């Protein structure tokens, strides 16, 4: 799915932010990306969603060496990657519906098809009554759901989330992580960057830990800081809508 080989990154003539990064994400895997603030998590994610070029090394995405790709080939590749940004990055002048519709419009989907899927998904994340609402009128949790809906509307093969639980309380954070697990069960490869040890300790997924620009892998398993989940995870058979993003969401 994605492979980093000896990746190094520096901004301009500054110090090296990432050094000799090597890892491979297999299709359908789920990883947490951890590390202290400033460790380089966001930079690593930016490299993964092709928002930056590495200073050295080789990045392979969906079997293609990124360095060998023509510039015109990159947009199609980016559209196969869903990104949840730390600050959501919703477009304030567009409704929730138009925000979520963006990836489909970019892909050239028909308006009727776009409407059907977007309305269904927003209804699914509990925002069926807020289709025309502009982001500034929504709560932080609602904005986050719009951002997540936008990142998954085009069924990306890879989902990257940068501190998706950073602006919400633990209860909503848990719901988000369950959502990402459900997406992962549907075949999407997931990587979540976070420093919320309390939350990720409850999930048995491997961690990639960044420390001063270098990466270490911690195998799968429940970490020592795990606490008892305050809510039960959804049953796989319930599906995404019923299990995770149903009526349980609130402002």
């Amino acid at each position, binding site marked *: 799915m994605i492979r980093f080989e000896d990746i190094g990154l520096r901004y301009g003539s500054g110090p090296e932010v990432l050094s000799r990064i090597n890892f491979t994400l297999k299709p359908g895997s789920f990883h947490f990306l951890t590390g202290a603030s400033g460790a380089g998590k966001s930079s690593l994610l930016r490299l993964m969603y092709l928002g930056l070029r590495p200073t050295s090394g080789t990045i392979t995405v969906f079997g293609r060496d990124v360095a060998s790709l023509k510039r015109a080939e990159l947009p199609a590749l980016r559209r196969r990657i869903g990104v949840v940004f730390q600050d959501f990055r919703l477009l304030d002048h567009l409704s929730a519906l138009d925000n979520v519709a*963006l990836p489909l419009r970019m892909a050239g989907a028909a308006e009727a098809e776009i409407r059907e899927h977007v309305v269904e998904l927003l209804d699914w994340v509990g925002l069926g009554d807020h289709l025309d609402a502009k982001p500034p009128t929504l709560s932080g949790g609602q904005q986050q759901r719009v951002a997540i809906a936008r990142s998954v509307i085009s069924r990306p093969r890879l989902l990257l989330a940068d501190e998706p639980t950073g602006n919400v309380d633990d209860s909503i954070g848990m719901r988000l992580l369950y959502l990402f697990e459900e997406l992962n069960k549907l075949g999407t490869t997931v990587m979540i960057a976070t420093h919320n040890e309390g939350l990720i300790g409850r999930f048995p997924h491997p961690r990639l830990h960044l420390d001063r620009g270098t990466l270490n892998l911690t195998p799968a398993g429940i970490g020592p800081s795990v606490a008892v989940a305050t809510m039960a995870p959804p049953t796989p058979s319930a599906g995404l809508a019923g299990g995770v993003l149903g009526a349980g969401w609130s402002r």
Partner: protein
Amino acid sequence: MFHHRLDLPLVEDATGRFMVWIMAVMVYLGIIALAGALVLSGMAERWENGLTGRLTVQISPQPDDLGTGTGTEVDSVAPLVQRTEVALALLRATPGVARAEPITLAAAHKLLEPWLGSALPDDLPLPALIDVEVADGGGLEVPALADRLARSVPGARLDNHAAWLDDLRRLARTAQLVALAVVILVGAATLAAVVFAVRTGLAIHSPVVELLHLMGASDQYVARQFQAHIVGLALRGGAVGLGLGLVTLAVLAHAAGDVSSDMLPSMALTPRQWLALGAVPLVAAGLAAITARWTVLRVLAALP
């Protein structure tokens, strides 16, 4: 509920209002300058059509005609009337001459009236004039004809208006070039304004542009947003400029109609020329769209 909108909030930009007025002024100036060029072109064409293909033979009175000769000269010339008949016969017998008609004394007086007044004395020594129409493609050798006339008819001179026509033509072409230069300058200034507006829009909305880029928007997708916005502004401004331009031309045409047509050539435009003026806002909008697209693509090429 579900509206197709620009992903970029360009409509809210202050540069939009500025662009509408810039386009209005530029289209207005472009229409006036283009109308000037077209009127001048029409004038030059009418002058050319009116005077080329026409010759004038002038036969000057000789001393005998004036009654000042001694009557003793051996080679005394024939009277003016006879020399005119000889010249007419020569002209009509020349291949390539379609028509040769003498200009009557009354008509000659009429020509002089603006300068000498209506009370011209009957014994005023005026030259005899012959209006000659050259046949299309008749292959008339003008210098040879002039030479034969001079030899056969004393005092005869052939005028093909070339010098006067050349001056007029040069004046019309110069004025036309100036008008076209104004059109080009106005167009260049308009395109510079478009580049400025698009670059400003890109700078103001760089976070949104970067977001769209990272989400997989192609450069063409982003460029289309700017294009659609700029075309909308250009068409609105162009409509205002066209309206103002047409009102100005109507006022000028009305004012020109009051002036004697002998003094001022016709300023009427053909239907095709009116269509050309009406197309100015569309051409301006098209050029603005191309410029906006080119500017966006150039800027986006710097993104990874």
